[in-house]
C-alpha cells in the first residue's frame, strides 16, 4: 500500500470576487501529523471544506488511497473516513455529549426506528475514556469548556471511524495546559494510525507536533517541508512573503497618570478582591490559567455583568451604571473573547459592524451618515490589513483571522481612554499579529491605557509594562515586566499543587 492516503491536485475554488484556492496541491501520508499554515485568508479553511465536501472545487482532483474521488457532501466524506473539527466548535449546546457525538449517524433499530440511547451512551463513554476525558457522556454540551467540547468533537470523529482527522485552529482558544492535552490526544491518534491535518498559527504547535508542514500564501501552494528541515525564519518568509525580524514593536513608553483603578472587585463564584490600577500609556497584561477569572473581571469592568462589591474608577470618577453603553461613553472599550457570538453580526458588512459601538458618532440627530461610516471603515480596514475587496463585504465571508481584525477595528472608531483586549491575537497570523501589536503600541503612545488578557507567554512578556497574574479568581501577583520571567509568572499562576503536577 502506498504511503499517501490523501492527495489533492490543482484544486481551485472561487467565491464571487475572491479566488480562495488557486491550483493548490496537498499530500497527506498515512499516520502523520501534517501542519497546514499560512496567513489569514490564505485558504486553509477553504481547503478543509473542499476535503469534507462542504464546498465543491471549481477544478482539481482528490485522490484517496490513490483512487480519484469526488466528495459531494459531508456524508460522502464521512463514508470515506474523513472528519473535521472546524475552526469554531459547532455543537448543540442544549444536548448531551453522547447526543452531540452521535447526531447525524445515530444507529436506529432497523424496524422500530428507535434509538438505543443506553448503547450509545455506553459507546460514547468508552470513546471519552480512550481520550482521557474528565467528563461523562451525559454532561450537557453547553456546560463544557471549549477544550472539553473539542474532545467531544474528536470523539465524534472517532465514532465515524475516521482515518483522516482535520483540525482547524484547535489550539487557538486553548490555554497552554489544554493545548498540551490536545497534543497528547493527537499523538495517540497518530499512533493508532489516524492521519491528521493540523491548522494553526502557532509555530510552537507545529514544531511540537507535526512531522511535515505545508504552507499556503495568497490562495496558492508555496511548499511542503519536513519540520526538522525548516527554520522558524524560513517558515515565516514562506508564509508572509517577507521576513519578520521583530514580532514585538519597540515600545515607546511614556506612562502618565492613573486612568483606571479597580478596588477589591468581587463577584461570588467568579472572582474576589481584585484590585489593580492602570495608567495612561501603559499596557497591562492579565494572565493566568483558564478559569482564573480574567474574562469575568474584564466583563465586570465593562459592565456586561455586575460585580457584587468593589468599585471601579475611571480618571478618578466612579463607574456606577453597569452597562457597556456607560463604559463606552466614558471611554472604556472591550474586545470580547468569543468573536462570533459577542463580537460580530455575521450577516452584516464590515462597515456596519465596525461602527456598531459608536453609531452616535456616525449619525446626526439619529440620521446615519453612511458616507462617513464607509470612509471610517475603509480607513480602519486598510490600517489593519483586512483581506477584503470592499467594506460592504459580509463579515461571514471573511476568514477567521480577518473577522478578528474587524472586531479590533470596532474599538478604534471612538475616543477611548481604556481598551481591554481579551486574547486579541487568538487565531491571527504572524503578520497581522505584528499589525495588532503595532496598533497597541501606537495607542499606548497616544495615551490610551491598555489591558491585554493573554495566555501567550511571549506576548505577555514582549508587549506589556506590568503583568497582573490571576489564580482561582484572585490576583496572585502583580509583576513588573522588566523583571518578570516565564517561571515567575507560571509560579504565580499555578497553585502549589498544580506546580507539582506540571
Amino acid at each position, binding site marked *: 500500500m502506498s504511503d499517501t492516503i490523501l492527495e489533492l491536485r490543482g484544486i481551485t475554488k472561487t*467565491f464571487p470576487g475572491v479566488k480562495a484556492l488557486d491550483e493548490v496541491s496537498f499530500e497527506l501520508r498515512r499516520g502523520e501529523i501534517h501542519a497546514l499554515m499560512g496567513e489569514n485568508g490564505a485558504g486553509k*479553511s477553504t481547503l478543509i*471544506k473542499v476535503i469534507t465536501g*462542504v464546498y465543491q472545487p471549481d477544478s482539481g482532483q482528490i485522490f484517496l488511497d490513490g483512487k480519484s474521488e469526488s466528495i459531494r457532501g459531508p456524508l460522502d466524506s464521512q463514508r470515506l473516513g474523513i472528519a473535521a473539527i*472546524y475552526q*469554531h*466548535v*459547532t*455543537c*448543540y*449546546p*442544549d444536548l448531551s455529549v453522547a447526543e452531540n457525538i452521535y447526531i447525524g449517524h445515530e444507529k436506529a433499530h432497523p424496524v422500530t426506528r428507535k434509538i438505543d440511547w443506553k448503547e450509545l451512551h455506553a459507546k460514547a463513554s468508552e470513546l471519552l475514556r480512550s481520550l482521557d476525558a474528565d467528563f461523562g457522556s451525559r454532561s450537557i454540551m453547553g456546560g463544557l469548556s471549549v477544550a472539553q467540547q473539542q474532545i467531544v468533537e474528536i470523539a465524534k470523529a472517532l465514532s465515524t471511524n475516521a482515518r483522516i482527522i482535520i483540525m482547524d485552529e484547535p489550539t487557538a482558544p486553548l490555554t497552554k495546559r489544554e493545548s498540551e492535552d490536545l497534543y497528547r490526544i493527537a499523538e495517540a491518534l497518530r499512533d493508532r494510525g489516524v492521519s491528521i491535518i493540523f491548522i494553526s498559527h502557532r509555530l510552537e504547535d507545529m514544531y511540537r507536533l507535526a512531522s511535515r508542514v505545508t504552507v499556503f500564501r495568497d490562495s496558492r501552494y508555496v511548499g511542503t517541508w519536513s519540520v526538522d528541515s525548516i527554520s522558524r525564519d524560513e517558515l515565516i518568509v514562506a508564509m508572509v512573503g517577507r521576513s519578520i525580524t521583530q514580532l514585538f514593536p519597540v515600545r515607546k513608553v511614556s506612562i502618565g497618570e492613573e486612568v483606571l483603578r479597580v478596588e477589591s472587585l468581587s463577584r461570588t463564584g467568579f472572582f474576589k478582591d481584585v484590585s489593580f490600577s492602570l495608567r495612561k500609556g501603559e499596557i497591562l497584561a492579565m494572565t493566568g490559567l483558564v478559569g482564573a477569572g480574567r474574562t469575568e473581571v474584564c466583563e465586570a469592568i465593562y459592565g*456586561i455583568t455586575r460585580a457584587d462589591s468593589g468599585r471601579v474608577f475611571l480618571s478618578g470618577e466612579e463607574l456606577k451604571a453597569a*452597562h*457597556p*453603553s456607560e*463604559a463606552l*461613553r466614558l471611554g472604556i472599550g*472591550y474586545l*470580547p473573547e468569543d468573536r*462570533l*457570538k*459577542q*463580537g*460580530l*453580526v*455575521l*450577516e*452584516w458588512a464590515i*462597515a*456596519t459592524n465596525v461602527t*456598531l*459601538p459608536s*453609531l*452616535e458618532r*456616525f*449619525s446626526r440627530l*439619529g*440620521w*446615519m451618515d453612511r458616507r462617513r461610516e*464607509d*470612509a471610517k*471603515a*475603509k480607513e480602519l*480596514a*486598510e*490600517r489593519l*490589513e*483586512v*483581506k*477584503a*475587496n*470592499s*467594506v*460592504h463585504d459580509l463579515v*461571514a*465571508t471573511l476568514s477567521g483571522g480577518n473577522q478578528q481584525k474587524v472586531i479590533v477595528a*470596532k474599538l478604534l472608531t471612538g475616543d477611548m481612554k481604556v481598551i481591554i483586549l481579551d486574547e486579541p491575537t487568538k487565531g491571527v497570523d504572524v503578520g497581522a499579529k505584528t*499589525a495588532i501589536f*503595532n496598533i497597541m503600541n501606537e495607542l499606548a503612545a497616544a495615551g490610551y491605557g491598555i489591558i491585554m488578557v493573554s495566555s501567550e507567554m511571549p506576548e505577555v512578556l514582549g508587549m506589556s509594562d506590568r503583568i497582573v497574574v490571576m489564580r482561582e479568581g484572585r490576583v496572585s501577583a502583580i509583576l513588573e515586566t522588566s523583571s518578570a520571567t516565564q517561571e515567575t509568572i507560571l509560579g504565580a499562576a499555578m497553585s502549589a499543587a498544580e506546580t507539582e503536577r506540571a
Partner: protein
Amino acid sequence: MAERSISVDRPRGLRTFFLQWEWLLVLIFVVVNVINSNLSPYYLNLGSLVGSTNAFLDMAFLVLPMTFVIVLGCIDISVASTVALSAVIMATSFNAGLPMPLAMALCLVVSTACGLVNGLILVKFKELPAMIVTLSTMIVYRGIAYVILEDQASGHFPNWFSFLGWGSIGPLPFILIAFAACAVLFGLLLHKTSFGRKVFAMGNNLTAARYSGIKTDSVIVAVFALTGLMAGVTALFLTSRMGSTRPNVAQGYELAVIAMVVLGGVSTSGGSGRIGGPILAIFIIGYLTYGLGLVNIKANVLLIIIGSLLILSVLVLNLRFGKGHRRPASPNAKMIAAGKAPDAKL
C-alpha cells in the same frame, strides 16, 4: 501601512436588484388587480381603487411598528386588544363629558401605556418569551375593555370626528394620506437612522449588540411603546369609520397584521426585512378583500386565500431567498443558530 486598498462599493447589479422579494409582491399585486378587474366591471376605476383604501387602511398603521417588532425577533399579539381598550376608553370618557380632542389624546396615551407595559415586562423578566407576555396582556387588555363597557356599544361622537375615517382631501382619502406619511416616517426610522440600525443589530445577534454598547432594553421598550402608540392611531381611525365602538372591535387584527408583515418578507427569526414588503402586502390583502367583496365571495374563502398566500410566501422565501441569507459556511450557521437560542427568548 495600507498595502492593499479596500473599496467602498456596494454589491450592485441587475441580478441582486431583481431578485428581491418585493418584485414578487408587485407581481402578486398586479395579478390581484387583474383578476379583480375581470371579476367585476366596477373594479378597475382609479376613483374606487383609491377610495376603497379606507376600508382596510386602519389596521395598516399597525403593520409599520409590527415590522420593527418582528425585525427585533419579537412578536406582539396584544395589539388588537390595545386597539379595543383605547377605543373603549376614548368613547366612555367622551360620553362621560371629556371634550373629544382630549378623549382622542387619552386614547393615544392609553394605547402607548399598553405598549409600554409590554416592553417593560419583557425587559424586566427576560426569561419570558414575547409570545407569552403579549398573549397575557392581550387577554388582560381585552378583559379591561369588557369590564368598562360590558357588551355595549358607545358612540355619538361629534360629526367632525368622522372625517378621520371618511373624509378626503381632494381626491385622496384622509386615511391614505395619513398612512402614507406614517409609512415614510417609519421607513426612514427603520432604514436610515441609528435607531433602526440598532433594531436590526439586535434581531441578528442580541449578544453582540449588547457587547457593542447598545441599550438593548431601551430599544425593546421603545419599539413596544411605539407599537402601542400606533394601536391608538388605529383605534382613532377605526372608531371614526365605525361611528361607535364595542369591546370586541378589531378582533383578529393581530393575526392579519402579523400575516402582512411576514408576507412582506420580514423573517420571523429577526434581523432582516425591508419596510416596503409589508406595505405592499397591506395593499395586496386589502385589494384582494375589496375585490372579492365586490363579487360577493365569502369572507371565509378570503381567509383561505390569505392563509395559502402566507404559506406560499414563507416557502418561497425559504427556498429561493433563504439560500442567500444563510451563512456560507454552514458550520458557522449551525453554531450561531445554536448560540442564539438562549437569546431568542425575547
